[in-house]
Structure formats: C-alpha cells, structure tokens
C-alpha cells in the first residue's frame, strides 16, 4: 500500500472553527471477516498490526468493522487496549452482522456510526462487559474487581475462584518483570465479558510490552531464538521449561501454572496465548503467525461449576 497516498486520502480535520483547535488525522483500518484472536489469530493480528502502524505514525484510527461477521470479546478487548496504549480512543463503524455488533456493544464499547470524523468515536459504557483496569501497580484492586464481576455474573456472592486469582496475579507479575525488560513502566489491560448464552466469563489480558519471545531473546541471546521456532519457544515457556529472565532460583513458573490450570486442574477453559508472532492454546496447538502482535495476549474462560464455596470465615 502506498503510505502517503493512504494518509492523504483519509486525512480529515474536525471542523471546530477555532484556530487553536487540535487537528486530527484519521486513518481508516478495515477489519477482516473476523475480529477474534481466539478463533482467527492470523487475520486479527494482521488487522492489529495495521492499527498499530497507523497509531505509531501519530494518527487517530477509525476502525471499520462493518464486514466482520465473527467478533469475540477478546478481539474488541485487544483493539481497545491498543488504542489506550497510544492514548487514543478508537472510533469506528460497528459490524453490520447483528450478533457481531452485539458483542461489540456488550463488550463495553458502543459504536457511533458516522462518516464524519468528528462523529466517529466509541466510548466506554456500562454494559455486561467491563474493562477492569489499565494500570501500573494496584494489582489487588484489579483482582477484587474481577472477582466481583464473576460473582455478579454467576449470581454467586461470596464464592471464590482460586485459579482466576492465580492467573491474574501471574499475568501482572509477568508484565511487571518482563514486558519492559525490567524497566518497570509496564501497563496492562484486563477485560472481562459475561457470555450469557454459554454462561461463561471470558477474560482477556493484554500488555503492550515487548512480548515474551522478545524478552526471552534478550535473556537467552539472539542465537537461541534463531535456533528454535517462536512457537516452540512459547510452548516451552508455557510448559515451565525456561528459566526466568532474572536467573533467580525458584523463578519462571508463572506461565506454566497458567497452563496447569487449563490442562491439569481444568479450572479454566479455552486458554489461548499469543506472544509476538507465536500462538499457543490449552489443547497443545502451537503455530507461527504471519504478523507480530507486539506484547502479550492471554485469554481464558471460567464457568459456573469451577466456582468454589465461600470461605468458612
């Protein structure tokens, strides 16, 4: 694609009339038929890669999702997270497919369909979906928010879900330790969504860091990442076979414990991890993706039957 032609064609200015008003340029980025890292990772990562490129140029992005007929909450979550990472609210068009449009609306964003750039905005609304946190620090508050969301969704006040707490803590610790290669300015998004039809709560974790594979290449050396495929490295990390970046004894178990919850304890369902250009899921499938998702994405679902009785206290 001719970059300059694309920018010129799609650049628009908000007609505020004020000389001092900021001028925004909008780039339209069209989703494919699917916006779902879980079900269509190749297509979705390609879309996200396009959005990121536009945002890196400093433009606002207007996502055109009208063609999408397979939209899952994780696809919406990761799109919102990308916009937030660049400090931008993404605007756009809702899918014309009714079920996909519903997922968009129920995922915590609402679309305002409009050709005018000034109208093109999504805003976060109170809905069955909830963005739990984009934050640095305060992990405890995020976990409490997630527990409250799940209890409310299932109507089980006081019930617990130990794997949810474990996975969230591991995600945040992993983000803190690795996503910025130890610089410590990590940020992340958790997104929760209650799928009433299947009666499951879907969680998406997205960090905008360097990604697990990049972190490992720094730790283990570029040669290591040249010797093995990205999907093999991610799979080994998920099996707890790689030591921690910090080389401290007893470290490097976090990702393995997330897989353990899906495969051995079976307290979560449908685990999917995308890091850089590698895909891994709880069924053991791994593959290399044609485009790179900068950062790390972890998705899982929990169901009513995995809730634990309230504490005795």
């Amino acid at each position, binding site marked *: 694609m001719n970059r300059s032609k694309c920018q010129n064609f799609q650049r628009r200015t908000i007609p505020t009339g004020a000389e001092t008003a900021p001028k925004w340029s909008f780039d339209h980025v069209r989703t494919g038929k699917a916006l779902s890292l879980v079900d269509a990772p190749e297509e979705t990562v390609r879309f996200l890669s396009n959005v990121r490129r536009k945002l890196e140029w400093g433009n606002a992005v207007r996502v055109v999702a009208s063609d999408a007929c397979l939209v899952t909450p994780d696809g919406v979550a990761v799109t919102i997270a990308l916009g937030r990472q660049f400090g931008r609210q993404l605007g756009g068009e809702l899918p014309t497919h009714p079920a996909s449009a519903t997922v968009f609306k129920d995922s915590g964003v609402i679309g305002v369909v409009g050709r005018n750039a000034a109208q093109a905005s999504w805003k976060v609304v109170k809905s069955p979906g909830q963005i739990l946190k984009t934050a640095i620090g305060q*992990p*405890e508050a995020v976990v409490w928010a997630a527990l409250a969301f799940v209890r409310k969704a299932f109507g089980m006040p006081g019930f*617990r879900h130990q794997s949810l*707490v474990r996975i969230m*803590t*591991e995600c945040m*610790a992993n983000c803190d330790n690795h996503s910025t290669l130890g610089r410590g300015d990590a940020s992340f998004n958790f997104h929760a969504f209650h799928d009433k039809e299947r009666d499951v709560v879907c969680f998406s974790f997205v960090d905008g860091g360097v990604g697990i594979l990049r972190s490992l290449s720094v730790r283990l050396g570029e040669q290591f990442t040249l010797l093995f495929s990205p999907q093999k490295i991610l799979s080994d990390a998920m099996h707890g076979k790689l030591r921690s970046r910090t080389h401290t004894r*007893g*470290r490097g*178990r976090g990702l393995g414990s997330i897989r353990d919850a899906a495969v051995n304890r079976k307290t979560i369902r449908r685990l999917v991890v995308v890091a850089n250009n590698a895909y891994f899921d709880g069924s053991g499938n791994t593959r290399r993706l044609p485009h790179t998702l900068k950062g790390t994405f972890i998705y899982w679902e929990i169901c009513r039957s995995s809730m634990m009785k309230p504490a005795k206290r």
Partner: protein
Amino acid sequence: MITMKPHRIAVVEWSSLPGSRFVDDGERSGEQYRNDVLEPAYLAAREAGAVLEIDLDDVEGYATSFLEEAFGGLVRGHGQDVIGRLKFICEDDPLTIREVETYMLEASEV
C-alpha cells in the same frame, strides 16, 4: 522425633488475598509473609520441638511466586529441617499441598 502438640497458623488470618513474590512487587507478598509470620512461627515450633501446621484454606487464591518465595524461601534460609516440621492443610485444593512440597524440595537441592 517430634511429638508435641502442633503449632498452627492460617494464611487467611494474615490475608485473604496474598500477593506476589517480593515486597517490591506489592502488598502481601510471599517475602513479607515469610518474614512477618512464617519464619517466627517456624522458629517457635522448632524451639518447642513441635510440628507447625499451616492452614492454606479459605483464601481467594495463591500465585506460584507467593508460595515459592514463602515456603521455598524458608527452606533456603533454614535447611531441610523445615521440610519435616511443616504440615499443610488445604481442603480447598489438595494439589496446592503437593505444589508447595515440590517448591520446598527443589529449594533444598543444591
């Protein structure tokens, strides 16, 4: 041989939501639990020649890093005596006991 009445602590009395590994990682870390609660209780039990029972039930959940740092860290500090002196209770999820014991055994190696 340890025969006295066991000493007993429950993690939930310290926090219902234990955190991550180090104090620097945030509140209620494994390091803080080891320093504030576990190590003093272990030393008291050892002084009395008793077993230390640790109730892991009723918390919202544990991160692996919390468990490893608290219990693996205690073994790294006090050696293999810890392994024989600690007894765990976890009706919520018995696999957690096996997990903690694995961390302690691995910490005792090398």
